[in-house]
């Protein structure tokens, strides 16, 4: 499934959340990542994040689409990052 992750966390934990996110997803722009994951990969990502965030102060939101094709991505201005197979 295709996953979009957006986070809004205390500044102390921003870097940590970014580091965990980048192990599973592609960086798109500030606080936003995307990529194709299996169920277990998503579950593990959530478990890893759960160890870092503070449930009272931080928020991580996942948008999940069964297939990438079901989702249309449009950009205004710069295209900073995202999922790629070729570098």
């Amino acid at each position: 499934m295709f996953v979009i992750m957006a986070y809004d966390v205390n500044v102390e934990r921003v870097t940590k959340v970014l580091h965990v996110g980048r192990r599973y997803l592609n960086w798109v722009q500030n606080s936003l990542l995307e990529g194709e994951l299996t169920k277990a990969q998503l579950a593990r990502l959530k478990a890893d994040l759960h160890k870092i965030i503070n449930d009272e102060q931080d928020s991580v939101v996942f948008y999940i689409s069964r297939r990438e094709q079901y989702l249309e991505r449009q950009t205004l201005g710069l295209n900073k990052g995202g999922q790629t197979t070729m570098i």
Partner: protein
Amino acid sequence: MRKPIYIFSSGTLERQQNTLVFKDGDGKKRYMPVETIADIHVFGELDFNKRLLEFLTQNEITLHFFNHYGYYIGSFYPREYYNSGYLILKQAEYYLDILKRMDLAKKFVYGAINNMNKVLEYYIRRGAEELSTTLEELSHISSAVETQDSPEALMAIEGNAREIYYSAFDIITDSEDFSFAKRTRRPPQNRLNALISFGNSLLYVTVLSEIYRTHLDPRIGFLHSTNFRRFSLNLDVAEVFKPIFVDRLIFSLINKNQLKAKDFSTGVEGVFLSESGRQTFIEEWENKLKTTIDYPPLKRKVSYRSLIRLDLYKIEKHLLGDKPYEPYASRW
């Protein structure tokens, strides 16, 4: 499902914050999600250290290298993903026993010729009736397979089959820019040959990466002789898939004008695809591997890439004495 990454730029690949980062010449960083990568194909100049190789091993990611002309150089194949001593012994047994080895080797050749037939039949249905003669010639060759008693003789027969089949390429593509003339390797002498060589090397590494995720030892092939220094099982299995994966993709790229004469260069190493040409090829190659088709034995759709894995499992079952291997046969 893990995915491949292709690196065309030159730079450094490193482990950083427990994931992979590529730094290009200008110091621009590009992070790659280590958890979802299957293998990395390196076309550019790449610097890396042992720490990276350890990290790739930990995460079970294979690394494949290609030279300046886009041809395969070698792979970093981390220690086994799965490891069944029993199956490896069986694989060796089927290699050492010449009858068992020939039986398997013939299956790869039959599988290859059968899929060549499917490609030709498709174009015959589309009006290229002159290909019927090629088809007949192929069936002659095919009937000689059974009587061969050495892998070398079988390789020669396979070579003949492919020569006859390749002779149909000029009729199928009907393009002056992509005339075939004859098969030339190392170096390829014209564009079509360059495409075949490039496509075949992509297939070899794709099969190798799939073998990595099975219990088979890639060094022990049956049709292609083992010399224990290089991979050969992937070459065997690739024979079955070349016509339907590589050749069909090439015809489509040429016939849809996605690749043109300007996408090639000529050097001392013969004719080769330029970087933009390679990118186009790889993009379509990846699209093809992702395409799903009906697969009746599992009563569901599977991707082209999974077809390779499924054939590897069939080979394992053959070696375990469970069920004789039947190579994948394209249905159209």
